[in-house]
């Protein structure tokens, strides 16, 4: 089902008189096409959970509308919206077995939707098979591993065949390996069911790896939406550029003077004639820096790190905004032991220029 969020606002009134209200979601305007897996991404406290709660109806927006398909569901209570929600802590009922947990939503059905015990058990088993948890039907949640609990939570959210599935940081309680495994699992389940799914996370790698579309948020505002790779390759603002990518992007304070881009004393790009002279921030992805004896970017080496496949050069530059800048290079290009300085060539497609307001300044050769 298509989900449309139309200029949503969510204000929480302040406790004390005089304090400003908390605006958790501000002018949230988004259309999610049917059947996609969407990642809602942003730092802690940016309003991801609030957005999810608005979509599922646990919260009512201060203003704005929500549509499922063509139906306006803004004032519909959660139980009539046909959503499934997987909580961050799973919220499995600890006193019920896996089977009873999965059957719980079905037992609430009334009227002509009411099912017999047999039908409920069949549906529960079907959902359990989908998430491959059918061997554990008689266990209690406490007797399952984190990953298994999460799958039970997904089964419970899916058993009523919701039009929209919402997941609130479902992987945050899992260890690194289980995370990798279960995020693939979520992808598989979503593909199999074709249910429009919104997946909240603050881990950009997680979002990039499995979603069809990401929505990057900051302080309740959408900063950019798009396919993960597109957003990564073409960030609209400094916040998005910094937020996506590990290791983090390197940021330098630079200047444009008569068409040339300066980082400190180094001219790292030129031919930017369309842009008037001004101060800018330059962001360069770690993989865009290539050691080259004739390169324009002169840096000091502070450490070399060799970690399996990747080698990284930790370097310094007078215009760098953080003390540890990083370049990821192939081992054959690694400077020799004892070298104090390195010069880099910069791949222009992975270097972005932002104005002082943080918005992208687009150079002419790229659209």
């Amino acid at each position: 089902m298509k989900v449309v969020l139309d200029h949503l606002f969510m204000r929480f009134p302040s406790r004390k008189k005089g304090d400003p209200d908390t605006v958790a979601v501000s002018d949230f305007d988004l259309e999610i096409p049917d059947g996609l897996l969407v990642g809602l991404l942003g730092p802690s406290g940016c309003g991801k959970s609030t957005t999810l709660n608005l979509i599922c109806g646990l919260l009512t927006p201060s203003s704005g509308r929500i549509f499922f398909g063509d139906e306006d569901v803004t004032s519909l209570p959660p139980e009539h919206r046909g959503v499934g929600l997987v909580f961050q802590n799973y919220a499995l009922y600890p006193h019920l077995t896996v089977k009873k947990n999965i059957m719980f939503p079905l037992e609430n059905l009334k009227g002509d939707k009411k099912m017999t015990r047999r039908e409920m058990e069949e549906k529960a088993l079907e959902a359990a098979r989908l998430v491959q948890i059918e061997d554990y039907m008689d266990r209690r949640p406490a007797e399952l591993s984190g990953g298994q609990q999460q799958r039970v939570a997904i089964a419970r959210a899916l058993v009523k065949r919701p039009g929209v599935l919402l997941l609130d940081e479902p992987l945050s309680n899992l260890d690194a390996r289980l995370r990798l495994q279960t995020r693939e699992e979520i992808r598989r389940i979503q593909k199999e069911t074709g249910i429009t799914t919104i997946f909240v996370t603050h881990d950009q790698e997680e979002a990039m790896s499995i979603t069809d579309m990401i929505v990057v948020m900051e302080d309740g505002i959408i900063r950019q939406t798009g396919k993960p790779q597109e957003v990564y390759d073409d960030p609209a603002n400094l916040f998005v550029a910094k937020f996506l990518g590990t290791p983090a992007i390197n940021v330098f304070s630079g200047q444009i003077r008569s068409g040339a881009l300066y980082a400190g004393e180094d001219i790292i790009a030129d031919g930017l004639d369309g842009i008037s002279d001004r101060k800018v921030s330059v962001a360069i992805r770690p993989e865009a820096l290539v050691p080259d004896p004739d390169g324009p970017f002169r840096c000091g080496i502070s450490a070399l790190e060799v970690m399996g496949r990747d080698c990284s050069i930790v370097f310094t530059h007078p215009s760098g905004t953080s003390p540890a800048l990083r370049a990821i290079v192939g081992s054959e290009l690694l400077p020799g032991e004892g070298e104090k300085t390195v010069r880099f060539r910069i791949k222009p497609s992975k270097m972005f220029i932002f104005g002082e307001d943080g918005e992208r300044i687009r150079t002419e050769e790229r659209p």
Partner: protein
Amino acid sequence: MNENNRKAWLYLMPAVLFLGVFMVYPLVDVVVYSFEEGYNFASQTFFGTGTYNYSYVLHDPYFMQALKNTFILVIITVPLSTGFALLISLALSSIKKLKELFSTIYFLPYVTNTLAVGLVFMILFKKTAYSDGLVNLLLGAFGMSPVDFIEGPYWAKMFVLCFYTVWVVLPFKILILTSALASVNEDYYNAARIDGTSRSRMFWRITLPMISPMIFYLVITGFIGAFKAYSDAVAIFGTNLNAAGMNTIVGYVYDMLYGNSGGYPSYASAAALILFAIVLTITVINLMISRGKVSA
């Protein structure tokens, strides 16, 4: 025994000594007394040993009356007070703004002295030559004839005692249950709401199982507490509980120890051990039931 073990025992010594002298020894003593026939406190002598004390106590009409009173008290007040406490806690936790105001009110009985409260109850319920008491005035207003709750019929006195007991234990139970209710994660209710669970189903399927350990705790301690009731009855009906027909088992034990010049410690010990056996049995039954039902 290795060095460490010896040290451990050495450090434990003071505690073990204290427990031994002030707990274990008296307990053993009570058991011994209860089997010594005709024990005289002054001369510290007895005729022989046997189960006569138990048989005497079990055939004593005063004891049987006390047993009956205690059982009625337990059976009425424990479920009633737990039920009321649950209702009040549910109401309190759904209206957050009134919580603080209520917490003072429902804590009044808890911080007030038993005897003082008992006196107030007596004044509320007592019928004297000059006044019928507040409760009787109210009854009169509804066109009912006045009842002497303090010296009148048995059911009226039992009613006052039960009423009083429920009222006194309520605050503690409300405190425990409100905090138990507050500790249930909000997400369970949110999850249930999304699934369209009705309010009553939320209560029976989520709230109640989640707080069941606390409810069982309250029931067990409630049973034990009610079986040990004594001071409440004294506060309302005075010290001569046998005459009032309102004695409890602990009251009977007390009377046997200190009543009638020197008393009958052997009978008292036997009665105390009978009480112990009853409480133990009930608690074990409670635990057995709860083991099957309660999910921690």
